[in-house]
């Protein structure tokens, strides 16, 4: 899995490509912990190139949403492919995340 980050003032966009599996999730969690800090008001997670999410990956995404809530910012998940969307729906994540 690859993570690309673009910071634009208070908006941070993170694009992940490849598989968000158990071995990749800790890297995303570390990146989220490091990047979502005071001053970030808008977080965009672009998943266009992510074709696989395991429960460890869902946990990482949930962690990001909790963090943005604590920062009183917003989070949007973008360009989710249909296979991954099914996983979000099955686990109730489709209801807690904002999609675009």
């Amino acid at each position, binding site marked *: 899995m690859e993570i690309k980050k673009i910071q634009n003032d208070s908006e941070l966009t993170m694009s992940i490509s490849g598989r968000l599996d*158990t*071995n990749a999730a800790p890297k995303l969690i570390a990146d989220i912990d490091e990047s979502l800090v005071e001053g970030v008001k808008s977080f965009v997670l672009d998943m266009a190139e992510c074709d*696989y999410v395991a429960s*460890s990956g869902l946990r990482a995404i949930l962690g990001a949403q909790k963090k943005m809530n604590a920062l009183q910012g917003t989070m949007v998940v973008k360009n989710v492919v249909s296979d991954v969307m099914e996983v979000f729906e*099955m*686990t109730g994540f489709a209801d807690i995340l904002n999609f675009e």
Partner: protein
Amino acid sequence: MKKELNVKATLENLHTVLGFIEENLELVECPMKIAMKIVVCVEELYVNVASYAYEGVSGDCRLEFVVDDATPNRVNITILDEGKPFNPLEKEDPDTTLDADEREIGGLGIFMVKNIMDTISYERKEENNIIIMEKSW
């Protein structure tokens, strides 16, 4: 067709395990959408074994991949370890209706497995934990 893979139960071997499952699903022409979900299930269960079954000592995990000639659209996958008794199916389902701040972290993986697979069972037999699951397409 019956295929078998034996590995040391470590997270380093996750990709070997998932590669084995993907390769064989491709051989039996399982549609990609279904294959991805089956792989998610195997990952969840294998990660459980690699993380909890052996606690500090090293141990093995065996995977069996079976597709009967009579039912070419159905796969039967067995995951076996010799670790301490552990039935992952007993884990309580998470409340999927809570919002982000209330959502707890645990139980999600097994919940996904139960949702995706058609059948799944656990048994403890001769010092082994044995998970057997099936999926048709």
